[in-house]
């Protein structure tokens, strides 16, 4: 058995080597870098340099506030929307189901730059279709890119558009795993469709909903593309800057790898903490 294991590990060596160099080492290295002052060469060990700055940095708190705001509003809205979409996709009354399934999933496969460019055009103050639609129902135009609140709303709308369908497809798989006869039994128990949804579908879908929520929380904690491309690097005036963007700005524009690493670990720590809290809150009673 020991000989067999040795052979297996020999076959695994190339993968383990690459995994260690490009995955494990950067994770350890960035953790070590977060304890170094990297603004001057040579870097020097200074445990409180970056972490101390992080605690008192208004830019960090701004990015944290923006990220959490998006997390708290966008994730529940998107998951709720995804559940509704999944239920509609699962309806026996729906025709051309495959087409809808593809349409809902399509945003994920659209290039990020392309979709961001289209969103910028759609939400343009002067000729964007969204403002035209608002005007057509008597509402004034909104300057989506110059004011913080509309800009945040725009980020949330874009992220929701991009990922709701993806989550809906995962939830649809969960819905389809609930046996029909459970609903038939409920129908014979004189339970209305609405009550069936709240008392049967949602509880049975809970593990999938939690899974989608965890994925979304991790994704939102790392949110970068939309504030970078749609609201032009977290604009206006840092109003949509997220932790991901702050990390990028510090690491790749200011080349301050130490501080960027500290931000990265904070993001990862927060994502894990929020996920654990959520898993604890939604655990099954024994």
């Amino acid at each position, binding site marked *: 058995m020991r000989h067999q294991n040795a052979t297996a590990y020999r076959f695994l060596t190339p993968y383990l080597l690459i995994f260690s160099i490009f995955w494990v080492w950067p994770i350890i290295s960035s953790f070590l870098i977060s304890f170094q002052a990297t603004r001057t060469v040579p870097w020097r060990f200074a445990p409180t340099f970056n972490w101390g700055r992080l605690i008192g940095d208004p830019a960090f708190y701004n990015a944290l506030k923006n990220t959490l705001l998006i997390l708290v509003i966008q994730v529940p809205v998107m998951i709720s929307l995804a559940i509704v979409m999944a239920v509609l996709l699962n309806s026996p009354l729906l025709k051309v189901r495959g087409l809808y399934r593809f349409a809902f999933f399509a945003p994920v496969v659209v290039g990020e730059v392309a979709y961001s460019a289209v969103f910028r055009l759609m939400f343009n103050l002067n000729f964007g279709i969204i403002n035209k639609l608002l005007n057509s129902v008597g509402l004034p135009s909104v300057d989506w890119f110059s004011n913080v609140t509309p800009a945040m709303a725009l980020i949330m709308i874009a992220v929701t558009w991009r990922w709701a369908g993806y989550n809906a497809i995962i939830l649809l798989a969960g819905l389809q795993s609930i*046996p029909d*006869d*459970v609903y*038939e*039994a*409920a*129908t*014979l*128990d*004189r*339970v*209305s469709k609405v*009550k069936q949804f709240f*008392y*049967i579908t949602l*509880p*049975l879908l*809970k593990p999938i909903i939690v899974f989608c929520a965890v994925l979304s929380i991790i994704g939102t904690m790392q949110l970068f593309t939309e504030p970078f491309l749609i609201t032009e690097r977290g604009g206006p005036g840092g109003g949509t800057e997220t932790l991901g963007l702050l990390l990028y700005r510090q690491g790749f524009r200011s080349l301050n790898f130490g501080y960027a690493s500290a931000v990265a670990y904070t993001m990862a720590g927060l994502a894990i903490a929020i996920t654990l809290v959520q898993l604890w809150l939604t655990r099954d009673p024994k």
Partner: protein
Amino acid sequence: MAAVTLTNVVKRFGGFGVVHGANIDIAEGEFVVFVGPSGCGKSTLLRMIAGLEDISAGEIAIGGKVVNDVEAAERGIAMVFQSYALYPHMTVEQNLSFGLRMNGNPKPDTERRVRRAAEILRIDELMHRRPKQLSGGQRQRVAIGRAIVREPQVFLFDEPLSNLDAELRVQMRVEISRLHKELGVTMIYVTHDQTEAMTLADRIVVLKAGNVEQIGAPLDLYDDPANRFVAGFIGSPKMNFMPARVVETGPGAATVELVNHAGARLSKPLQSTPPAVGAEVVLGVRPEHFFDAGKGDCDIAVKADVAEHLGSVSYVYAGAGDDELIIEREASRQRASGDHLTVAIKADKALLFDTKGARIR
């Protein structure tokens, strides 16, 4: 408690007919079993009574009221599903009370009904467990309990025992029978197992390919089947069918010769006009209706292939292919494969069928 009447009930899926005009009258408090092979339409028929399937034509009445356009929930029926269909995230108690709670039934009444169902089915100890913590038999009890708390006019059972092992199936069969006596409610039960049908039913409805072949009391179907299908389906082991030819006819009788047993002739009294001489027929004899040589109206010699000794009974399998016979005899306990034996057939215990399967009486 309510009577159930099916009048010319038809079910088509697209252009494909599944049930072709079923006419069945089920009296109040009666235990009726729909039995037939897979795909015969028995479950579809049950689901149409439940209101889970629309009917393509015909009429279904429960308690004298036509329910074609009445929602499943309003038909006053309860159903026990093959897969139990318990709510997996609820405890046994919640499973039992769910329907009543959702409909705003007063709490004391809900508790009373749940307690009563739990007592009847002896599941009091399991009330706080979830379905995944229960055995198959316990789940089945909970599923039945959920039906009981509804206090329905009609109970429907869709192959409720097919997921249980043989021993548990026998035990649950007795329990369902006891339950019927205790509640006195109309029960309609679907199974493909003729033993279940024979042991449980007041009356059996035999179905084949969407047609009702025969309706009757278990022993009536056993003793007096309407056709070869019913004769073969009811009874275990199944009836033996031997090809034969009419060699002589007289007033009220026909003499047939067994094709695979040259010289074996049997004169069978008939109430109808006998078939013409030379006509091909089939002689049906149940395994338990073979007698010792010389003690019947016609002897046949066979060679035993396999002998099965089940303890209380023994079966000898003789011949092969079309000519395979299953013989139950006291003496067969001593038989072994390769033995030659001669058995007798009595005319009054043999049934005659034409080549299309219709009974010649």
